[in-house]
């Protein structure tokens, strides 16, 4: 039970980081980014390659400290987000969604195929948890959980500062009324681009934290279900455009998800079917939320634009 709470603290914080990044893009600016799994994978692999002690025939083995790994992860993910943004952000909403989905799939295919980079489908093991050398194996999850939670709080604090600033209000205005914002002389493309890159960097950090918690990653650690669909549900459940809601959503949804795994062990279902049943339930939950309660559990705190009469625009 105690071990479960430690694991919940680790994974909940990791997901909260990813969800915060996603919430900036989707909840505040209204970018439907579907490459979260690719960006998280890019961040995770970057951090592992930078901090790993041994290479074993692939790129890596630089043995740099953990914090450099996080910075590298943020930079690589931000770069990828920036590239896709430059190519497609000036287009319509749908085109952007398609191309980001393609970017995510592309990153996953590259990680699967290029053995010199990522060791292919065999993955990379033996990833160090930071500080685990000092406290031993029993406490390492607790230490890592607290560390992840603190990093998450730091990101939350910075993001709150950012979204409460004029910059953040412009992002919300873009989501609610793009034309009006443009008429006020704000460069919509540039603001969207900044939000996309900043969000991608945070997602990259989340992916790196995930890799260091798991200790072993392969391309399938970052599937579209676990790393794109689940964060999406967390954002929507917590209420899009609400950072506190994202954190609550992340912990609640991850708690339910991990408990469902334990419960499913007692049910008379073959173990091969359990993941699909859980995905099915998550899908039904997300669709029902959109259908009946688009504001999420908590909902957005405020709307900046009084022209946003449509309740859904404020809610989304």
């Amino acid at each position, binding site marked *: 039970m105690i071990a479960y709470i430690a694991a919940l603290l680790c994974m909940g914080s990791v997901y909260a980081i990813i969800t915060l990044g996603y919430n900036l893009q989707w909840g505040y600016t*209204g970018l*439907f980014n*579907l490459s979260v799994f690719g960006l998280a994978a890019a961040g995770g692999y970057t951090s592992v390659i930078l901090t790993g002690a041994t290479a074993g025939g692939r790129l890596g083995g630089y043995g740099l400290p953990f914090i450099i790994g996080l910075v590298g992860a943020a930079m690589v993910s931000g770069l990828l987000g920036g590239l896709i943004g430059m*190519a*497609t952000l000036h*287009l319509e*909403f*749908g*085109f952007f*969604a*398609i*191309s980001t*989905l*393609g*970017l995510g*799939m*592309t990153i996953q*295919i*590259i990680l*699967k*195929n290029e053995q*010199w980079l990522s060791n292919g489908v065999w993955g990379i093991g033996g990833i160090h948890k930071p500080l685990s050398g000092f406290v031993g194996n029993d406490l390492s999850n607790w230490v890592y959980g607290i560390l992840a939670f603190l990093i998450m709080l730091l990101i939350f604090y910075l993001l709150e500062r950012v979204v409460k600033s004029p910059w953040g209000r412009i992002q919300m205005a873009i989501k609610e009324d793009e034309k009006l914002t443009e008429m006020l002389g704000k460069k919509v493309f540039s603001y969207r681009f900044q939000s996309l890159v900043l969000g991608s960097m945070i997602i990259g950090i989340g992916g790196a934290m995930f890799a260091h918690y798991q200790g072993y990653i392969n391309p399938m650690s970052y599937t579209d*279900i676990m790393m794109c*669909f689940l964060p*999406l549900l967390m954002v*929507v459940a917590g209420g899009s455009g609400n950072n506190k809601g994202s954190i609550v959503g992340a912990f609640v949804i991850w708690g339910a998800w991990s408990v469902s795994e334990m419960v499913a062990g007692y049910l008379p279902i073959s173990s*091969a*079917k359990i993941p*699909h*049943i859980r*995905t*099915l339930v*998550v*899908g*039904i939950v*997300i*669709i029902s939320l*959109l*259908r009946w309660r*688009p504001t999420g559990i908590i909902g957005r705190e405020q709307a900046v634009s009084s022209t946003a009469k*449509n*309740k*859904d*625009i404020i809610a*989304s």
Partner: protein
Amino acid sequence: MLGSIVNGIILGSIITLGGLGISYILLIQNYFNFTGGTFFTLGAYLAFAFLSIIPMGSFPVVSFGPGLILALILSMIVLAIIMTAVDKFLYQPLRKRNSPFMFFYLTAFGMLFVLRSLIYLIWGPQLKNYISGVRKTYHLAGGINISPDEIFVVLATLIIVGIVYYFQYYTKLGKAMLATANDSRLAEISGIKNKHVHTTVTIIAGVLTATAGVFYGLAIQLRPIMGFTLLMAMFFAVVCGGDGAILGTLGAGLIIGITQEFGSEILQVIFDSTGIPIEMSGYKQVLAFLLLIVILTTKPHGIFQGTFLER
């Protein structure tokens, strides 16, 4: 080399049909249907389920029988019903309360995972085939291996595209759809029932998607993830075809099919001769994605003349 061009044409016909299913939803209901690829898979698996009840029988030249045609028709009907039900239950309330388009995408994205997990739950992750045993294959000069089934797929695609084209531009219902796509309020004033148009569009999309899925299963094989891997290619066909123009989608579908098969082979030869260690067979989807990005940045309204509304 020539063989991969033929394979590309076959894949391109399948992509065309799937792309048309997506483009119909896009034009009338204004969102890119992410679920399109998964409906495609569902259609193929539905036909597989019907084939376990219906005896296959046999046709003279091809290796399938009348059972497959019957299963195809049943699968079309069932998929059209499923898609209409999804549309009525999930998208109609969104349209009614005038939701922003992101809600449509989010719902479509959720449906993708619901359907995918259902397919995994019911049919499992194994590969499946409609036809057990060896297929009849002709070995022609130039390394072309083609089976009569594949010729059937290409010919049937051309016929279906022709029928859809005729329906769209020469019948009253098709013209009503064009009017709704252009200006739904004006169309409603002139007596066209918007609701009926939405239902018709969904049914057409269902029929086309189911056909595409069954053709994929017939020409290649059944996999639970097959529609999702073709999704980028279908989107390319829709975008490059010129806002979903019917003949444009056919052209763009053939382009992307041939690029995926023939182009990847050419690139493999180039990479091998220059010593770049890239195995192209894993990157066919990426090729479709890169082409999509190129089209979106240079010509976001397609490379063919005309659009869906103005052919």
